[in-house]
């Protein structure tokens, strides 16, 4: 937003200004609150720095054991060699919760600096936006709007630079691989994504989209005129090159642990199914609604004496605070069930990607839908995972009016659902102001971009989004002042996650419908 420059802004000037502006803002956020993730990453720095590789996935002095894939451990290892110039004490495993001033500065700056990759990826993504709409005013160009939507993304700002995580450069890798795929540099894109998978395995959620898209567009070299695949165009050479790249990356990452015979240990760290269905704060997904229905049924049941109060497990009444949530009326959900639900929900979009290829646009839609489906039905989903859908969908939001509308609902609801991450009073104004800043910008810029094509949202959608304001006021301002806050402190979190879950589910449904019903004819032209 720093580059509010009238016509004639030369070249990359405004992009640099935007990137610099947001980096400065990140520096301003250094003294803000940070969560336990700060200690998690400090601990990983210490583990990778002071132990041999064979110990990395066994060390458990701190409760925050290493549970990211090996490349991320190597990344921390690399960082630790810079960290020792700041403060050597942070690299000692026994120094639990160590947070000297130099440590904070180092960790915060490491996030800000690695975000350079994100900035580069965004600039590559902006290049893929065609300049057909080129207008007089830089401000109203799709590429500029996209740059702001990505660089100044509210969720990324608060999760990385206040809450503390390294999502910036990871999303950078993701966006870069997306950009490479849309530039038809498939192998490069595949390589980047393979590296990304070995940095953080949450990106497995979107792996189906990558797999199918690469198979369809890289391994098969031609299509029939109606868009379906020409089976005899399968290229072994291409498949082998793709496969060898992916295998090489995985070998580099997991190889040492296979040699050491530690693969089961690594995998058990990466996929801890021992955790509950929902995180302490329910992510606004299908299971939040499921839990809410269960809870309201049990309350109604108790009131009308359908249920025996003694038989109800007491833990369920404090739901939202304990990790294990026991359902009273509806059947309890197992990890396998969520896996099946996720699989089924991903299927339609993947099938569409195969049978109705629509180039990079279709790929992005499918990718978002994969991310969103896993968010909706996944096991122990974190609220932060919504960024996995919001960020790639930003690329689509500047392309058509319909998608801009969906994006606005998704981003606004998703971002609001991140609010409980920051619960400390000094950060309250920051999150409100940043949220207003981002939301206002996304609404007004997209509205301006598509002003000739009519409104972006219909009235029920608008009403729903406006409803977020009283929800937030009640949850964070009014409710804490009431007497219930002592007895039922989880109500605001529950309200937020259930209300947001409706929005996210709606977006998921709309996106499914859009993917399934969109005619194939349109992207025929694009493909050829």
């Amino acid at each position, binding site marked *: *937003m*720093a*580059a*509010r*420059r*009238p016509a004639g802004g030369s070249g990359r*000037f*405004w992009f640099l*200004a935007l990137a*610099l*502006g947001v980096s*400065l*803002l990140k*520096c*301003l*956020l*250094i*003294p*803000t609150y940070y969560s336990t993730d700060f200690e998690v990453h400090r601990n990983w720095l210490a583990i990778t720095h002071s132990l041999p590789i064979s110990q990395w996935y066994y060390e458990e002095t701190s409760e925050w054991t290493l549970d990211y894939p090996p490349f991320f451990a190597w990344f921390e290892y690399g960082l630790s060699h810079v960290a020792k110039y700041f403060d050597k004490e942070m690299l000692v495993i026994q120094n639990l919760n160590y947070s000297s001033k130099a440590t904070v500065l180092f960790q915060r700056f490491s996030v800000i600096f690695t975000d350079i990759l994100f900035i580069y990826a965004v600039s590559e993504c902006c290049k893929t936006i065609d300049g057909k709409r080129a207008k007089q005013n830089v*401000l*109203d160009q799709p590429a500029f709007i996209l740059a702001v939507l990505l660089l100044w993304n509210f969720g990324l700002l608060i999760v990385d630079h206040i809450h503390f995580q390294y999502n910036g450069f990871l999303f950078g890798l993701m966006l870069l691989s997306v950009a490479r795929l849309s530039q038809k540099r498939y192998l490069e894109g595949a390589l980047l994504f393979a590296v990304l998978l070995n940095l953080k395995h949450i990106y497995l959620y979107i792996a189906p989209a990558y797999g199918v898209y690469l198979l369809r567009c890289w391994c098969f070299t031609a299509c029939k005129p109606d868009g379906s695949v020409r089976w005899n165009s399968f290229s072994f050479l291409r498949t082998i090159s793709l496969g060898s790249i992916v295998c090489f990356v995985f070998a580099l990452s997991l190889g040492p642990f296979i040699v050491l015979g530690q693969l089961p240990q690594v995998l058990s760290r990466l996929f801890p199914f021992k955790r509950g269905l929902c995180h302490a704060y329910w992510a606004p997904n299908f299971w939040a609604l499921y839990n809410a229905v269960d809870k309201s049924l049990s309350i109604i049941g108790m009131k009308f004496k359908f249920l025996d109060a003694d038989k109800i497990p007491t833990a369920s009444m404090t739901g939202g605070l304990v990790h294990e949530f026991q359902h009273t009326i509806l059947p309890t959900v197992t990890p396998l069930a969520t896996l099946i639900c996720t699989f089924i929900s991903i299927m339609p979009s993947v099938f569409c990607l195969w049978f109705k290829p629509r180039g990079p646009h279709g790929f992005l839609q499918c990718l978002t839908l994969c991310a969103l489906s896993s968010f909706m039905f996944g096991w122990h989903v974190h609220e932060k995972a919504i960024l996995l859908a919001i960020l790639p969908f930003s690329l689509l939001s500047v392309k058509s009016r319909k998608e801009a509308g969906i994006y606005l609902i998704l981003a606004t609801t998703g971002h609001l659902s991140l609010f409980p991450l920051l619960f400390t*009073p*000094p950060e309250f*104004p*920051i999150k409100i*102001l*940043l949220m*207003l*800043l981002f939301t*206002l*910008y996304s*609404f*007004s*810029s997209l509205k*301006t971009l598509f002003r000739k094509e009519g409104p972006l949202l219909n009235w029920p959608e608008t009403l729903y989004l406006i409803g977020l304001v009283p929800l937030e006021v009640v949850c964070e301002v009014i409710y804490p002042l009431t007497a219930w806050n002592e007895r039922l402190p989880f109500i605001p979190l529950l309200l937020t996650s259930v209300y947001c879950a409706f929005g996210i589910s709606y977006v998921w449904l709309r996106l499914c419908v859009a993917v399934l019903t969109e005619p194939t004819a349109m992207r025929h032209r694009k493909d050829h």
Partner: protein
Amino acid sequence: METWSLTALSVLLGLVVRWSVSLNSYSGAGKSPLYGDYEAQRHWQEITYNLPVYQWYFNTSDNNLQFWGLDYPPLTAYHSLLCAYAAKLINPDWIALNTSQGYESPAHKLFMRTTVFIADLNLYIPAIVLYCFCLKETSVNKKVSILLCILLYPGLILIDYGHFQYNTVSLGFALWGVLGLSYNWHLLGSLAFCLALNYKQMELYHALPFFCYLLGKCFEKGLNGRGLALLMKVAFAVVASFALCWLPFLTDLEQILQVLRRLFPVDRGLFEDKVANVWCSLSFILKIKNILSPRTQLLLSFAFTVLALLPACIKLTLQPTLKGFKFALVICALAFFLFSFQVHEKSILLVSIPVCLIISEVPFVSTWFLLVSTFSMLPLLLKDGLLLPYIVTTLTFLLASVTVLSIHEKISEEALRLKAFFLLLQVHFPGLGVWTNAINYFFMVSVAVMAVVTFMSSVLIPPVRFPDLFPVLVSSISCAHFMIFLIYFNIVYLWDSQNKKNLKKTC
């Protein structure tokens, strides 16, 4: 995008920066027994809440004036009282008489920061927004750019949200005064300015331009008819607002005198600490404080101040234009800052805000000035542990002014408003080549010097023989800049070609 959303975005950006700065430490945090300005403000809440009005400014057993005694005019005291009522509601310990001395806690910090935020949001920011939208002859984009730059001015943010003061209140009132005069609501303008004066006596730096402008307006209308009526009305507004503010103290002459003694502590010397004005900078070479008697010092500073601001004031009285008024505000405040008695480093804000007002006229020099003014407070900011926000907000401001105002393109004679002066110069000294391109290099050298000195003061340890080396460097560099700026602003104002054209038309 619509104008209102651009405006709202700028304001939100300004607010985000403000609140993020406020998360940093404040002056005197944890520094027992004297603490700093933060404790002073808290102490005033304690005093005004617990003591009757007639004891506020007097040294009593419960009110030790040596420990941050109230030394601002009554409006500050009322504001403290208001905050104290809010504090009482939240936590009575914060303002308990005597026992609360040096009270510090995260919750209290949050409360204090919020009071500044609220004052800023209600007084200063609306005034700036309104001001930017009443600018004439500029496009919407330009107005918003100017708004963004003014809102991001680091000096005010760092002092109010970092160091801790309520400058936005007094400066906000003064801005409402300027707004009043620009909309020709002279009464409202003078009322707002009187409130500013009654909030901080330092607003006297701005008093002369207000006076001269209004006087000039009266002369313009003719002293016999409407002019006289206006003069009477303004005088009445001033007297009435002063009387209202001072009402509780009007019971007794001794009360008034005591308040005045507290407001103008003449015995505190020519200057305090290291301030970037002429006397302090001179004293590094010549120990004026020791050579001259206090009385001579007072006279000397008075004489120089009057000399420095006289031309601008005379011109303003003769030709009361709005543009001239803004320039005169800058010149007078700067003259006071450089030459007057008992100046604080934070008083540079009184110059900076008028400079913000002329950012549309002379963007390049204004931005430069604003950068230097922030730099001149560096020793203070370092003491408060505000190095990081200082660097970041300064860079943000620089970035904003380069991108949205494109200051680097505005260095022609025309843009610098020096054409008339250079023409005159060439008439008298033919053959004197004037090249304005060099000014870009001067700017870069100046920024580089400031960066280097900032780096040195924050990283290096000064040699034992000169423990004050870096503060001295900062203040003398800033003072040299300010002197040049004073001359520049005077030249621009006194040789203003537009005014001459207007004059010819009217004649």
